[in-house]
């Protein structure tokens, strides 16, 4: 069961979105997040939903995958909707039961909130996790943070730590699995008893795991030193990030989307359009 855990959910591919520069994708993702939060009228939500559909279409990621990606946020989705519905007391009263009163504004706000969260998750995962390999993502983060170098922050170390973590997550999962099997063979029971009993059963896993990972870190650092690693200074890279015209077009399209959403907002709030 432990093997089901996959890191991120990168689906390799060769679409325009897959090939885009990770730095640009991060920027675009931020703009999209801005646009989703700026959106307040139904028309702007409809428009953003259209963008997500387009993203699905271009990246060739299965819509089912995107829907499944919603699973972890379902609780938050319904919880916030619930709060909105029952705590809003404006608009016309639609239904009433015991202490609960449902108003039209509450329903509307709940719906918008659900749209907002769903769009947020769908657009960021389509732009980042599904279409960007973890290593490209760390490179992108390093690239975007590089201006901070002037402030004395070590962005290279940070990126190196991230990519080593990603490299070793599968290895550590494998190791956990091995230790779990070994402890099960000795009669440790992980699946019965109360919370405290189960938590206690985890100790025989974590102690050997920790010991083993400390040894691993020691050996890895020795191997890195042997390969002349001495931090980011004077280091070259096999793969250099490059902004292409493709990336610029994507960015312009994205800025256009943000502008449209804001225009829609202004139209609805200032000119009183019903949507």
């Amino acid at each position, binding site marked *: 069961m432990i093997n089901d855990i996959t890191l991120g959910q990168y689906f390799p591919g060769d679409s325009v979105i897959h090939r885009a520069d990770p730095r640009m994708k991060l920027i675009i993702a931020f703009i999209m997040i801005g646009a989703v939060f700026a959106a307040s009228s139904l028309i702007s939500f409809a428009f953003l939903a259209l963008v997500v559909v387009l993203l699905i279409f271009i990246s060739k990621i299965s819509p089912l995958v995107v829907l499944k990606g919603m699973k972890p946020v379902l609780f938050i989705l319904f919880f916030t909707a619930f709060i909105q519905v029952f705590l809003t007391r404006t608009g016309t009263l639609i239904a009433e039961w015991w202490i609960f009163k449902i108003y039209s504004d509450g329903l509307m706000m709940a719906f918008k909130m659900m749209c907002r969260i769903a769009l947020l998750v769908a657009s960021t995962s389509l732009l980042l996790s599904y279409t960007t390999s973890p290593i490209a993502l760390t490179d992108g983060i390093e690239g975007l943070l590089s201006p901070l170098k002037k402030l004395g922050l070590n962005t290279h170390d940070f990126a190196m730590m991230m990519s080593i973590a990603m*490299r070793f997550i599968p290895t550590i999962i494998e190791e956990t699995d091995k230790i779990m099997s070994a402890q099960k063979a000795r009669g440790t029971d992980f699946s019965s008893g109360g919370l405290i009993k189960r938590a206690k059963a985890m100790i025989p896993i974590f102690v050997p795991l920790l010991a083993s990972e400390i040894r*691993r870190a020691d050996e*890895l650092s*020795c*191997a890195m030193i042997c390969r*002349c690693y001495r931090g980011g200074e004077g280091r*070259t890279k*096999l793969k*250099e990030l490059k902004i292409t015209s493709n990336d610029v077009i994507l960015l312009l399209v994205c800025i256009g989307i943000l502008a449209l959403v804001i225009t829609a907002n202004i139209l609805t709030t200032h000119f009183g359009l019903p949507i």
Partner: protein
Amino acid sequence: MDIIKIKDLSFSYKDGEDKLIPVLKNIDMSVKEGEFVAVLGHNGSGKSTLAKLINMILTEESGEFTGELSVCGKIITDDITEDEIYELRRHIGMVHQNPDNQIVATTVEEDVAFGPENLGIPREEIRKRVDEALEDVGMTEYMHHAPHRLSGGQKQRVAIAGIIAMQPEVIIFDESTAMLDPHGRREVMKTIKELNKLGKTILLITHYMDEAAEADRIIVLNDGEIYKEGTPQEIFSDAEALRRVRLDVPQVTELFTLLKEAGLPIQNIPTTTDGGAELLKNLFVQKGGR
């Protein structure tokens, strides 16, 4: 020319407050350019310590050493600078025991590039070296794979490629086959022999007698001292001496020693399986000819 030269070298690990654990005692040895030397010794005899000293991983903080060590013609002294150490280290690659703990990157290609990247080599040159190194170890088709999906032998070959790409003159293997299955061990040994043919100096630390038998020369360590030194022929001809230091002779050698004692006309006892096969063939031809 001696690419590694060690004179009267002793080393003790520092253990907490001023307590010293002597590990290597009065080591004298040298390795010539292009030579293939195997180092044998039981657990804790100081083999890894020797390798780490040659590669300058052990510093004054980790222990105390006396004697003389020179690598690639440069004598290592106390006042060697950090830059000089890095400069020397690029000439001495080291492949470790656990294949998992020496692969740094998330794809094979990027891992092989790690060393050259650290050396600040231009990108086109890195590309070339990565492709050549993967070709050398026969892993070209796995270039874009994730390392954790590979077999132990394949991982170890990737680690070797990562070292080759730095183009060192000497490669030290510290029990690099110890965690592999027989198939993986064969793959790695084959790669090591090919590297030696390409002119790389090899220092092979191992527990397997049949691997040591492939070397030009064997150095046997026992409790931090050089116990014996010589060609595989010389070393394996005295099985008794090896057993005294908890080592053994290769199976072929043992077999032919027994056959010789049984009266078969054998002059030179073979140390490798290939040598044994050759000898056996000759014996049969002689028999058939008569």
